[in-house]
């Protein structure tokens, strides 16, 4: 069984289910990517894994522990970190304060982790006294990822980290994400840019209408003519 394993998740926001028997998993140091057309329930699947959605069926385990009933806050304490797609920084707080808030639950010295984040995103060190709301879209995403890393998570979840950033910044962000994964952190992300995301993915999940349509390694999905034709535009 994978480090994170969400099995047969069924549920939604109201009466109607959005997810149907959706299964997602990611191992230590792996990158798993969820792709699919608009309205496929990609973000909903992320929220379900993070406990922001009531599941009617299915279970979520992290490192073998059943966490299905835990609140998002308790999951943070368990080593999960989540970067929402929008509103993912504290706009009127400085970059450094954003990182400090990420480490709010930690009582030990956060200096070392902060240096690691600055090492990963050097631009943030230059801008550490500037309010996060004043940064460019790409820099703001870096702050958001940095904030999530401050808890020293085992699993980092990213909801469309490259939404609204330029192609150059996107490549840069993907490189950083690979770097994070190399340190042993599992990464689960939803991506709109399916092709690029699958290129760096160890595992790929194609969701259609809340169901698993295709599941394979990123490379295999990219090579699958059916997936290429339907989801990657040929």
């Amino acid at each position, binding site marked *: 069984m994978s480090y994170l394993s969400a099995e047969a998740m069924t549920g939604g926001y109201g009466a109607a289910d959005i997810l149907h028997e959706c299964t997602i998993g990611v191992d230590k140091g792996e990158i798993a990517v969820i792709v699919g057309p608009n309205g496929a329930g990609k973000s909903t699947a992320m929220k379900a894994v993070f406990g922001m959605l009531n599941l009617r069926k299915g279970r979520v385990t992290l490192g073998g522990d059943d966490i299905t009933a835990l609140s998002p*806050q308790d999951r*943070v304490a368990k080593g999960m970190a989540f970067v929402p797609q929008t509103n993912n920084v*504290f706009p009127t*707080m400085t970059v450094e*304060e954003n990182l400090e*808030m990420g480490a*709010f639950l930690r009582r030990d010295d956060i200096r070392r982790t902060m240096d690691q984040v600055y090492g990963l995103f050097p631009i943030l060190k230059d801008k550490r006294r500037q309010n996060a709301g004043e940064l460019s879209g790409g820099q703001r995403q870096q702050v958001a990822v940095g904030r999530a890393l401050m808890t020293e998570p085992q699993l980092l979840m990213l909801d469309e980290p490259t939404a609204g950033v330029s192609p150059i910044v996107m490549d840069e962000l993907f490189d950083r994400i690979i770097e994070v994964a190399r340190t042993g952190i599992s990464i689960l992300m939803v991506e709109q840019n399916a092709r690029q995301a699958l290129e760096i993915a160890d595992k790929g999940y194609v969701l259609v209408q809340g169901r698993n349509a295709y599941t394979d390694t990123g490379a295999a999905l990219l090579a699958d003519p059916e997936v290429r034709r339907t989801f990657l535009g040929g």
Partner: protein
Amino acid sequence: MDLVNALVALANFVLIPATAYGAQLALGALGVTLIYGILRFSNFAHGDTMALGTAFTILLTWGLQGLGISLGPLPTALLALPFAIALTGLVMLATDRSVYRFYRKKKAAPVILVIVSMGVMFVMNGITRFLIGVDEIRFADGERFLINARAFKEATGLEEGLALRSTQVLTVVTAVAVVALLFWFLNNTRTGKSMRAFSDNEDLALLSGINPERVVMYAWLIAGALATTAGVLYGLDKSFKAFTYFQLLLPIFASAIVGGLGSPLGAIAGGFLIAYSEVAFTYAFKKVLTYLLPDGMAPEGLVQLLSTDYKFAVSFAILIIVLLFKPTGLFKGKAV
């Protein structure tokens, strides 16, 4: 033309009183803006929280005076203030537990919380009157003046007197100290930063493991302390009357909104803006103009833009103008 006398008259009747009043409004508006930032509703009970906190202070002051304790030249109320703040804090927490928390759990819309706070306002209103009565109460003791009008005239040989009451200086000094302490707390402590984070982005604060109930608790305690301090300073400077404090709600809200709801800096700027406007619009400039204009051109009328009875119209007009043209306020707060 007599520039010096004109300036002295202006300072005596406009600048000094308005500065003291502005500091009082700023402290009041800080409380409103803090609750808005954290709990996301306009707390209509704030004026009556000020009244209740001041009532506690007055009762404690009488107790201290009965025991023969005083602060010498400073008002005894200053000694009673910390205890009154503690009592008000307890009332705030009890109100939150028994009333607001229920609606928070239900994720009630802000407009519902506003109505709830009006209910709390009426209850506090009643409790205050029950506790201390409806009459006007003066509870300032100690030295009355730092600069006496007659002594000033004798010392400078000017026609105009300048009076500086000790409560006015006390108001400004206390307000500066309280604001400095508040900003230090918000910018440098873990709890203060978590409050700013919560105000900035509630969902992300939850994702970062910040405990919302703790943040809310601190917000009420600080709002209670600010309300009590503002109320006591206003009461020392003028007098205490439950109804007047209820009326203060309008200029306080105007200050908070003009500055930008949720912005502490805005609340302070708004407080002074409202206070200066209110005093300037209702002051009769005849005297100042008589000094300034050449002989024979002195105005016959009072040169008063509005009667003092209409002073609330000034706050109201500013409030409307801001809401129409710059709803987020001067310091980019949240839109109402």
